[in-house]
């Protein structure tokens, strides 16, 4: 297994390289730049702005300069303990943001990622705590009213998009009952509504996929064998069926967790949360080249890591598989 993981980590280097290269050049072909503003700047000012940020260098030079800044140059992981400073730890420099000139992309990530991780963690908890039981229950009581109730509940989570659910929760619980702040990220109580809103969508997916996955397994011969041997229904479900039944959920969760942990644009906007999710979308709108790349690299890291975890878990769930 260690060899498998090692090989995957090696593979991730070219993957990352392609992602960085693709993003770097893609965004340069998008019309508008970091200094495109409603009141256009004069050509003299624009020239100086471009010179200041070295945007008038040949593109290949900008690209190689950037790659050099990204290349790890030292190894002091201890520095990560006092804040997520990738520059101090590994010499990886994402450079200053264009939009927020007095912040570096390293800093923005270090400030905001923990917030998104926390929100994502809570939401994931909500999603799993609601989604898994609903899905299992629906599968076990297949085509009964319990199934329909669970499935309908899950479907409601999908039918009501977060940009509708969030404001409704705010109107009811923050404005009408006054139990919460309408927005903000101060005390523990401010975690409740955003986590519920974000978690509900994923809960719905998890419930549906769990139900579907379990039904696949429940009809297989080894389950019938287990039942015939007199194993209790709970034992059949949790010892035998759930392992295989969770496969689709696990496949889904890899990229989903990467998304959930790196923040959600809609949730962070609705609840004014200082997380990273807004930066993913806004940096593209702002043509904040360095911040776009920084967030993309971070997200790519999560995707690569989580898909690796998923592949490991899949082997663990299905002993017939081997690490290839």
């Amino acid at each position: 297994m260690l060899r498998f993981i090692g090989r995957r980590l090696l593979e991730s280097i070219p993957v990352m390289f392609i992602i960085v290269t693709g993003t770097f050049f893609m965004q340069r072909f998008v019309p508008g730049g970091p200094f495109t503003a409603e009141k256009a700047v004069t050509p003299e000012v624009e020239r100086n702005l471009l010179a200041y940020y070295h945007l008038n260098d040949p593109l290949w030079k900008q690209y190689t300069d950037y790659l050099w800044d990204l290349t790890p140059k030292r190894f002091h992981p201890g520095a990560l303990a006092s804040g997520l400073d990738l520059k101090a730890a590994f010499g990886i420099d994402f450079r200053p943001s264009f939009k927020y000139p007095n912040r570096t992309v390293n800093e923005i990530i270090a400030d905001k990622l923990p917030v998104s991780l926390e929100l994502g963690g809570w939401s994931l908890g909500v999603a799993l705590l609601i989604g898994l039981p609903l899905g299992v229950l629906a599968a076990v009581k297949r085509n009964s009213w319990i199934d329909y109730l669970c499935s309908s509940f899950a479907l409601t989570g999908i039918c009501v998009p977060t940009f509708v659910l969030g404001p409704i929760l705010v109107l009811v619980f923050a404005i009408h009952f006054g139990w919460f702040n309408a927005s903000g990220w101060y005390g523990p109580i401010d975690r409740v509504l955003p986590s519920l809103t974000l978690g509900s969508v994923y809960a719905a997916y998890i419930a549906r996929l769990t139900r579907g996955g379990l039904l696949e397994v429940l009809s297989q011969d080894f389950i019938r064998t287990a039942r015939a041997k007199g194993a209790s229904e709970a034992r059949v479900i949790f010892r035998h069926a759930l392992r295989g039944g969770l496969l689709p959920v696990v496949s889904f969760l890899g990229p989903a967790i990467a998304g959930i942990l790196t923040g959600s644009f809609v949730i962070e906007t609705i609840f004014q949360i200082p997380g990273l999710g807004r930066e993913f979308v806004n940096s593209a709108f702002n043509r904040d080249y360095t911040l776009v790349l920084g967030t993309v690299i971070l997200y790519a890291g999560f995707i690569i890591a989580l898909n690796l975890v998923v592949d490991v878990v899949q082997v663990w769930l299905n002993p017939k598989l081997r690490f290839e």
Partner: protein
Amino acid sequence: MILRRSLRAAWLGAAVGASLLAAGCGRKAGTAAGGKGGGGEQVLRMGNGAEPQDLDPQAVEGIPELNIIQALFDSLVEPDPHDLHPVPGLAETWEVSPDGLVYTFHLRPNLRWSNGDPLTSDDFIQSYKRILTPSLGSDYANYFYNYVQGAKDYYEGKVADFSRVGVRAPDPRTLVITLSHPTPFLLEMIACHFVWDPLPIKVVAKFGPLGHKGSAWTRAGNLVASGPFMLKEWIPNKRVVVVRNPNYWDAGRVKLDRIEFYPTDDLGVEEHMFRTGQIDRTYDFDRSKVEFYRQHHPDELKLEPWLGSYYYVFNVHRAPFTDVRVRRALSLAIDREQIVKAIMRGGETPAYSVDPPNDSGYTAQAQLQGDLAEARRLLAEAGYPGGRGFPPIHLLYNQNQGYHRSVAEAIQAMWRKNLGIELTLSNQEWKVYLDSLNGHNFQLGRAGWIADYPDPDVFLEIFETGNVNNDGEWSNPEYDRLLHQAMNARTQAERYAIYQRMDRILVDQCPVMPIFYYTKVYALRPTVKGWWPTLLDEHPYKYVYLQH
């Protein structure tokens, strides 16, 4: 504090199908973390639109930044809280030479930065040198070098000697600015535009080279202020807090203890924050909520004239807009009253000329006049009777504000009905849209222009041939000549007379189709006092206080 018996609850009940909410009841607000301090502390909490880019007056361009910078940095003259006319600020008095070219400012005695350092005329000189440093790449450097003698040559590197630029400090309390041409609105500009603010140059230098932006000097704890407030806290995407500056020259007048600025980039969210008492003022306001507030909370709703025009630009190089009769016909064939009343709903006024009225005492006399019959006649004259044979036309617009789309849809319907012509709408992402506009890559484009300082020149200069903001590339030699003539006019009256002639040309030639003049729509807690409507939505904080 709001106590809301609400019809909204009933509506919401219907919306979520939860009848238990139908019985509306109120709630007390103010549980927000920002909250009011004890002991009657005066805290103003502002919804501030976007997260500020930076707080360096020479490195920013937006209104959210302006709102905070006005609390932190003072200038030679300050805007009057009622009508924004320039009143003494850091400068106690000033003289202007008879030819209008040389301004001599006398600073107040014992001016200090918030850290106690003396603030002298040299700080101005060094700050102006910094904004002209090409490597700084200041977005608004042109607001400085377009007016000060020798500044543009220095900025473009044609002159290396800064002493050739028209700013001098004969002694620590005297600042002399020499202009390249008389600029009658110089003081208005200094009062309202932050490029003229002096910076704490020693502090800036401590954190990085002067010619670099983005050093740490603007961080909380580092930033040193000259204005009524100083920076206490800045947590990105959370809030910016400023507190009273004891070293401000007019500190005795300042009544607020602190101001908190909250980034609020979503209208709905912001209104919720206002309703739960988390903020005292919204940055903007959803037009669909205006009617409800007008009926139920008229004391909280503010609809104030705002110095800006909303219009569609014709690209005069693209057929059929090469023909002035077509431009005029289209401009005559929309019902501006209805657009304002049914769609905008914020008290905007229909626009029949580019210049908003009552702009520093100027109102354009030339107004677009003519009825539908004339519009149809003009269109027929241009060769398209009843819209027959009219080429397809496309409108370029953006959708950052919901009403852009509604206005476009209404105009589309009006032209179809009134002239029999078809308009297609093309929404583009914000920066793609801006790039298309600036690159003249459009046929008909939505645009708006909001003044940085109160003077009609703001609206007239953009139609000069070759102006970077002249997106439609309309060009008129007579107009250009008049613009230069106005810049050298001796008196305000003489200048405004020239502007009247220029406005006449704009109305006759229709380079753009004015639609309405903006209003600033926002919600404000009635407890906020010392706050007057001004044309630029600027409300000098030193006069503001809360009365419970």
